[in-house]
């Protein structure tokens, strides 16, 4: 039904259809956007249960705002990223204060145990290094290089200019390189 429409319009159309009582539209939107939003939340929070809660909360907000959604507003996915990002920030702050922040190790049964261990080490090292970045740089780097969004999209999510995003990403990456420098050999890279 929405094949001929651009992505943005298709999402808007689905949201409008949901507001008019179309249950299938909710299903389609969920299937389309939930994996990305969940992955973002998971990478920010480091555990599945918090990531699931935050994703559910973000979608609940989307369903509530659907009847008043304006076409000229942001893309639905961008809006969701912004909401989930704020929810993650709150949740992360709360768990850090309570001292319950933990990272689960993602499982991937398809690969060998050795490779999996190496990958897990690399993932943990990157996660730890990213956690050491200031909030703005961390979010910008994650949205750009892990969620693979464009700079204008990130600018919309974070409410700053595209130039500011470019600067945040560049500074974040420089800092990451510096932090990870001391772990080069453990990460499987030669010094030099």
């Amino acid at each position, binding site marked *: 039904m929405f094949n001929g429409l651009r992505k943005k319009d298709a999402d808007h159309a689905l949201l409008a259809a949901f507001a008019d*009582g179309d249950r299938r539209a909710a299903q389609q939107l969920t299937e389309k956007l939930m994996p990305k939003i969940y992955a973002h939340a998971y990478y920010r929070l480091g555990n599945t249960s918090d990531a699931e809660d935050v*994703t559910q909360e973000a979608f609940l907000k989307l369903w509530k705002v659907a009847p008043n959604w304006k076409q000229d507003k942001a893309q639905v996915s961008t809006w969701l990223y912004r909401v989930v990002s704020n929810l993650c920030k709150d949740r992360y702050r709360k768990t850090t204060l309570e001292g319950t922040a933990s990272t689960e190790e*993602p499982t991937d049964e398809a690969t060998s145990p050795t490779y999996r261990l190496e990958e897990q080490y690399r993932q943990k090292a990157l996660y730890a290094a990213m956690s050491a970045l200031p909030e703005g740089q961390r979010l910008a780097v994650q949205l750009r*290089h892990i969620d693979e969004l464009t700079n204008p999209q990130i600018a919309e999510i974070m409410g700053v200019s595209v130039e500011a995003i470019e600067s945040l990403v560049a500074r974040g990456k420089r800092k990451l390189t510096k932090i*990870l420098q001391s772990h080069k050999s453990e990460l499987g890279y*030669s010094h030099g």
Partner: protein
Amino acid sequence: MVKDKRSAKDELSDLFKSARSASPRVNPDLKARILRDAEKILGNTDLPRNLSWFNNTQKFLKDLGGVPSSIGFAASLMLGACIGFYSPDWSESLTIIFDINTFDEINFTGSFFEMNELF
């Protein structure tokens, strides 16, 4: 295990790629939870849409019971207003027909525990 010398940029790209592949599988229960929420929102009531004044009026008329009902309400409103402002002596003819004389039956100056005799 040790890879060739590569630039810091490449190494970082590798790490990002690795992080992207680490996304856990989505729990099917999460989708069910999200759709349950959607169902609840839809089932709650009519969603509060941001309507224009025209749409609001239309909705109000619909709530009144459609066009015939609205005309009836409007006619009775106008009649009420006419009676209020014009004050025709219709009430007098009605009292004659039904043989009612309210003013005679209420004794405004009647005794109330003989208090009126004090004044």
